[in-house]
Structures are given as C-alpha cells and as structure tokens.
C-alpha cells in the first residue's frame, strides 16, 4: 500500500466558505491528504516581508510564508493546492504570484483554484487526481515512446474517442458522440479495432481517460485509468514532438477548458474549467447549428469572416447566442458571425484562464475544437504566436492514454 500523497494547502477563505471539507474529501478520494504547513510566528513575518508582496489580509500573508517554506524546503510536500475566494482581487494577485513562484522555483506540481460556497469535492476531484498522478507517476509520465499494441479510450463530455497504437504509430481510430457512456465507448473501441485490423485480445495494454474513465475503465479492464490533465498534456507534447523543454497545452473542451504549463512532458501548473459555457466548445456547436453548418464547416466559415464586425463576448451561452441571433437579424454575414463566435471563445479563455499559467512556446492546441481553424487563428492572434496543432489532435486523450498504458505491458 502506498502512503498518501501530501498536498500542501495555501489558502484564504475555504473554511469560512464551508468548502474546506470538500477540499479534503476530494483529496481523500485520490488517496491524498491536504495539510497546512506549520510555521513559527517569526518565520511568517520574515518570509512575508522577504517575498515583498505587501497584502493586508493575514491569511494571505500566511499563504505567502507557507509558499516560501515549501520552496526553501523547510516544509516537505508532494504537491501544492492554492485556493482563494472567487472575486477577491487581493487574493487573485497572491494566488497567481504564488503559483508562478512555486512553479519557477521548485519541482512541486501546483494547481490554483478560486472557489465559491458552491464548490464541491466533485469539481475538485480531477485537479486533485492530476496532482497525485504527477507526484506518484513521474516515471510513467517521462515515457517518450509507445511500445507494443495498446489502446487508449477518452470518454469525454461531448465525444468518446478510441485509438489503437503500435510502436509509435496510430493504426486505428474511433470517434463517436457521447450518449450512453459505456455504449459510446464500445462503439468507439469497435471502430478503432476494426480500422486497426486486430482483435481485442491482441492488445497488450489498455488505458482510459476523460469524464467516464472509471466506468469505462472498469468495463474494459483497463490497465491504466488516469485523469485527462496529465494524459492530454502527455499526448500533446508526444504528437507535437515537443517532449523536451517547456510548452503550453490548451484544450478547449465541450464542458471545460484546460490550460497546462508543461516541462519535459510533465505538467507543472494547470487550470481547468472555471468559466461559463460562453467560452466552451459547446458554444461553438450551438453556433454551427444556428448557422446551419456542420461543426466541421465552422472553421473554414470563420476564416472567411471578420470577427470585429460582430460584437460578441458573453460568458453566458444564452447571451452569446442572443448576440449571434441579433447579429444575423441585423444583416451580418454568416462568415462574420462564425469568426466572432471563435474570437469570443478564444478571448474569454485568454482572459480568464491563460492568465493563470505561464505561456511558453510552443503553444499546442488539442482536442476536437483544435480542428476549428477560426478558433486556432483567433487564439494565435491573441497570444501573438503561431499555434501548433499536431496531427490527430482531436484524439489527444486517447493517444496519451495509449502511450502511457504501454508502460503497463507485462514483461517490458
């Protein structure tokens, strides 16, 4: 039995928001424990003053002193969880600076989160799991080659993907909309296996990821069940040929978005979700539907339009659709509306999430939405960089899962 992963908590407000027990429950669910680094009173004063960020809230001063103790090694931990109240400007500054400070000065994986009283352990589970994965499976995450015959299944909120790989080559893929979780996985797997021309029994190892990873993993007897933050980032750097050095992975999903700072293939800090549906892949699906085109046609349509001609920047999917309908009703072209929708999603991810990670090139865009050229273009314009969209980017979770599961082939 392994000992629990020790996650140091740097926070202000969760115990007064009634969510401290949710944080602890999420950690327990992935065999981890959160703890508050103990410090001497004199150390709090000196560390806070040495850090140089003159905040007024005492809990934030304490968080700063605890961060310094972690970086300086006077307190030992496997990972760091930074949590402050949503909508607190002072805390947002501290949260961001501490995340950057720990990321740049230690090997500790760190995730930051702004909570409300509605935050539940379920919301935090994937983040906690990613922290424990990075702490426990560094050797596995360092794997650079896929070996043998393996399959990865990504049971996502919108689509289910399956990939069969053999010795660093993708030989079969399956992609179906997620309806009933197990049935969709069975169908995607069947497509991938048929295309690969193999039998299920031929597979040496299988991995699952995504929202339905546990259910599907149990059903198919997966060797590896792992959350999508570490799996997707691994798949992204693998397919983009960027396994060494720094990189940034952006995955705008159907239900949530991920932004991950990666170093040598291992995530250092990341954010996930946290903003409204107006900045999700789902909004682009709705846009395509309203424009009467298939989602695969939205990208080329957007590339032919000018986003600045249509005002659209709502966090909310309902208000965003309202802007879209108004624009069409006042004579805007479908191309301009499609471009505006892509720009709106990219801008909100840029403003709300990418500020929480350090953007380092190459910036790799993955997931189904990376096939929408208009969105990739808009993101590139905002980041002032050329985005990298690797081949098979829509299968990123399944590829990462197939790659990592090859570490579980017996006898290798």
């Amino acid at each position, binding site marked *: 039995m392994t000992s629990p992963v020790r996650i140091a908590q740097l926070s202000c407000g969760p*115990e007064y928001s*009634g969510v401290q*027990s949710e944080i602890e429950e999420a950690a327990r669910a992935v065999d981890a424990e959160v703890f508050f680094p103990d410090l001497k009173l004199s150390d709090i004063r000196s560390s806070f003053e040495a850090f140089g960020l003159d905040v007024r809230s005492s809990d934030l001063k304490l968080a700063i002193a605890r961060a310094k103790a972690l970086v300086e090694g006077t307190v030992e931990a496997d990972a760091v969880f930074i949590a402050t109240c949503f909508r*607190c400007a002072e*805390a947002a500054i501290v949260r961001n600076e501490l995340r950057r400070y720990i990321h740049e000065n230690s090997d500790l994986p760190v995730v930051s989160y702004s909570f409300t*009283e509605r935050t539940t352990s379920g919301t935090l589970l994937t983040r906690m799991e990613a922290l424990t994965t990075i702490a426990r499976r560094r050797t596995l995450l360092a794997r650079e080659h896929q070996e043998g015959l393996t399959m990865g299944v990504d049971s996502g909120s919108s689509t289910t993907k399956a990939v069969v790989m053999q010795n660093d080559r993708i030989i079969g893929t399956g992609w179906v909309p997620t309806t009933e979780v197990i049935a969709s996985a069975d169908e995607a797997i069947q497509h991938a296996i048929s295309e690969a021309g193999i039998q299920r029994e031929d597979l040496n190892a299988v991995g699952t990821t995504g929202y339905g990873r546990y259910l599907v993993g149990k059903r198919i007897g997966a060797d590896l069940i792992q959350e999508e933050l570490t799996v997707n980032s691994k798949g992204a750097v693998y397919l983009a040929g960027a396994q060494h050095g720094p990189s940034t992975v952006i995955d705008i999903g159907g239900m949530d978005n991920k932004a991950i700072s990666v170093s040598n293939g291992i995530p250092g800090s990341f954010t996930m979700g946290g903003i409204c549906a107006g900045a999700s892949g789902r909004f682009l699906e709705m846009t395509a539907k309203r424009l009467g085109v298939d989602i695969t046609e939205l990208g080329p349509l957007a590339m032919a339009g000018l986003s600045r001609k249509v005002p659209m920047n709502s966090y909310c999917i309902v208000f965003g659709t309202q802007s879209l309908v108004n624009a069409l009703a006042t004579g805007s072209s479908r191309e301009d509306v499609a471009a505006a929708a892509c720009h709106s999603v990219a801008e909100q991810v840029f403003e709300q999430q990418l500020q929480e990670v350090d953007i380092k090139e190459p910036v790799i865009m993955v997931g189904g939405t990376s096939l929408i050229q208009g969105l990739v273009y808009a993101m590139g314009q905002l980041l002032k960089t050329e985005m990298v969209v690797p081949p098979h980017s829509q299968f990123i979770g399944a590829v990462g899962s197939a790659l990592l599961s090859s570490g579980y082939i017996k006898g290798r």
Partner: protein
Amino acid sequence: MAKVFIYPATSLILSDLVARFDHTPLGTALGIRERIQTPGLESPPLQITPDDPKRGLKYAAVEVPSGVRGRMAVYGPLIEDAEAAIVVHDADFAFGCMGCARTNELVKFMIRQRSIPTLDLNYPRTEGEGEEFVAAIHQFLASLGGRL
C-alpha cells in the same frame, strides 16, 4: 454587565480582559462555539457550512467573496448583539489575527454604524504603551458598569 464585541475577534487576551471585568466578550470563540455545539453539522474545522455565506448576504452582496460573507455570518450577529466594542488597530499576529482585510473593513464599519460605545486603541509596541493600553481598557469597561 455589557456585551462587548472585541476586535480582533480572535484575541484571547482581549476576551479575557473583558471577562475579568464582568462583561461578556463577543468574539470568534463564541460564534464558532455555537456552531460546534449544534448537532448535525459536519463541516470541519469551523463547522461553517455553505449555508453560512448565504446567511452572510444580509451583510454583503452576492458579488462579495464567499469567505467574506461566511465570516460575516459569524461576526454580523455578534456585532448586532453588542452593547459596546473595543477595537485594537494594527495588532500583532500573536495578539489576535483576523484573516481577511475586506472582512475587517466591513466589521469596523458595522461597529461604527451601530453607534455603540467604542474604544479605539492602537496596538502597544512598548512596555509603557502596554500599561496605558490595559489602563484604557480598564477605564472603558468600568464606564460600562463593570467591576473596578
């Protein structure tokens, strides 16, 4: 005997001083004790549940962070109940520590709004200031009708 709200509300020294002069200190210990003694609550460490930030809406709007509203759910009723207050400014961590600066601003403002007898003191930094500090509190509490 008066109910005296203390600031910092976590200060055991202030709480003890108020109690020694036969008044009732209103601070964090009292607010949290009520929660800990309420059967059926299971939200460690302070037994503050997600309902508390909602109760805090009485004192701060929904756009105010949940941590401020949760704290106000503890301190707000105490301030409403108080007949007097002692406010120590710029206190050392060891004297009593209030975690959130925004809550502190609101707590101090609410005390002013109540128009109750309030003693404002700066935290003493020397022995001489310390003696004056205790004497001032002594005098204030006595003026409320406590034991001399």
